[in-house]
């Protein structure tokens, strides 16, 4: 970060990282996407790796992630972000590469790419925003939608007999030897944001030696899709999401 700590006689205690553009976020009020964007970009700025980092945006609410992130980026087809990131990383093995995907993108249409990217131990960071819904297309059921959760395509609630169960894809990925660091975080309060930032820092730190895939699930909210206020959505998240998707590390490098 820049060292100028004074502005018009005031002390600067908080500012926008140079890795974020001036474009205002288009996300709904209270949505976790913008917080995760900011955390990611803060870390890249603070680590001084803006010139060495390439990101991949998904299809989903964060399809325009490249509008906000002031780094080289590619926008992938729905579900294919980790394959695109694989292609980039294989051309630039010395660069930092991350993919950013929602739950429909990563755990439904892109499940095969997700599993095989991690199985190859691609040396990238995969960020997975789990908001238990398809935000962009208007609140349809996602693979991560909770049992009995009402969405626009599970209007009577998700019924496991015909719609299957919430897919804990992160738990599945832990089984793969290619996974180096797997953690589940959230951004629903300040403490959680700090912990997410630590996880992102670690992941980029690990990527310096290309030891395998780092995978961060962020349990997030969707106030519009869930039809709640931001405050209600955070409460619902704590009460309903965390029991199914508990926060914490799922796999840490041995000896770290």
């Amino acid at each position, binding site marked *: 970060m820049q060292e100028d700590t004074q502005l018009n006689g005031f002390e600067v205690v908080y500012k926008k990282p140079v890795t974020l553009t001036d474009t205002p976020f288009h996300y709904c009020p209270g949505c976790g996407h913008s917080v995760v964007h900011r955390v990611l970009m803060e870390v890249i700025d603070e680590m001084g790796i*803006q*010139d*060495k*980092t*390439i990101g*991949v*945006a998904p299809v989903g609410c964060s*399809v*325009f992630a*490249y509008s906000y*992130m*002031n*780094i*080289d*980026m*590619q*926008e*992938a*087809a729905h579900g*294919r972000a980790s*394959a*695109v*990131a*694989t*292609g*980039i990383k*294989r*051309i*630039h093995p010395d*660069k930092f590469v991350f993919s950013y995907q929602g739950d429909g993108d990563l755990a439904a249409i892109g499940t*095969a*790419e997700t*599993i*095989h990217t991690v199985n190859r131990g691609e040396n990238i960071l995969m960020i997975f925003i789990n908001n238990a819904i398809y935000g962009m297309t208007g609140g349809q059921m996602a693979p991560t939608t909770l049992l009995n959760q009402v969405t626009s395509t599970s209007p009577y609630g998700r019924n496991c007999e015909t719609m299957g169960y919430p897919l804990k894809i992160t738990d599945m990925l832990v089984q793969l030897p290619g996974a180096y660091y797997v953690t589940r975080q959230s951004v629903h309060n300040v403490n959680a944001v700090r912990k997410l930032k630590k996880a992102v820092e670690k992941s980029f730190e690990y990527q310096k030696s290309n030891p395998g895939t780092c995978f961060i699930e962020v349990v997030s909210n969707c106030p519009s899709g869930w039809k709640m206020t931001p405050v209600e959505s955070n409460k619902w998240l704590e009460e309903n999401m965390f029991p199914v998707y508990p926060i914490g590390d799922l796999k840490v490098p041995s000896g770290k």
Partner: protein
Amino acid sequence: MEDKNNGARLMKGNEALAEAAMRADIDAYFGYPITPQSEILEYFTLEMPKRHGVVLQAESELAAINMIYGAAGAGGRVMTSSSSPGISLMQEAISYIASAELPCLLVNVTRGGPGLGTIQPSQGDYFQAVKGGGHGDYHLIVLAPSSVQEMADFVFDGIRLAEKYKTPAMILADGALGQMMEKVVLPEEGSLPKTEKPWATAGKPATRERNIITSLFIDPEKMEGINIRLQEKYEQMRDEVRFEEIALDDAEFALVAFGLSARVCQKAVDLAREKGIRVGLIRPITLYPFPKEAISNLTNKVKFFLVVEMNAGQMVEDVSLAVNGKRPVYFKGRMGGMVPTPEDVVEKLESLVHSLRKSEI
């Protein structure tokens, strides 16, 4: 394998193509096995590690083509290959690549369809290759080899054109060209210099704006602008039209065929001429851009066109458009992996000539 004779070798089409790709300094190959082109992937997995290039057997053609999108966007010289069903699976990403204007080489060693079809050679993917294939208004540059030599040479031509026009180029071969062995003189290593790619996602230095590779232009006016630019580019690509003319100087009738069918027709021309039928052959080499002027010019010279394809009649539509009603356009095809024989072609030709002579009396 190396022949003392001018460096000529006896090679399978698929292997000649893969070795040419090595010599064209491909940075990365991503692919998935499918007959009749798996030798290409196998050749890469054997040879690429020795050359410190990237080779990756993906989990599907879907993953492979999206790796191509990433690697091409990152500035790599990249290619993939597959056969008909695998190419169908790639279409969404090919549309993205065309829209994002990224260069890459695609190879389709086709087989008979529709569906899972057969592993025998076919030209049933002509429409898919030349009309775009995926969603939206776009085209690929499409090169149609008709020999093992051209399987190798067109790798260089395809990459050169893809990089010149920032667009995907496709080699549309078929299972027979992939599998057959012929003499080939391979292109020389290092004869295709790398091009500057200042637009690539290689990490943003402080000295430039960030590079974004996307096919998303949500504002329709902007999206129309992108379309206009693409169409202008396709217009410029007309300079690259290539075709071959055989025995057309004194011809009364013209055969039109590409790829393997053109080989069949070449023999048919000889047989027909032995029978006193003055027939020639025009072989489109670039299927897109299509040699429509060359075909149109022939309308002043020949009495009719006979288009020969290994499909139900696909290129014949483009020939008819070029001929524009000035002469009759006839069709002879075999489908589903069957290859017409020279005798089939001559028989059809004889019956057409016969009816014409009768109507002239």
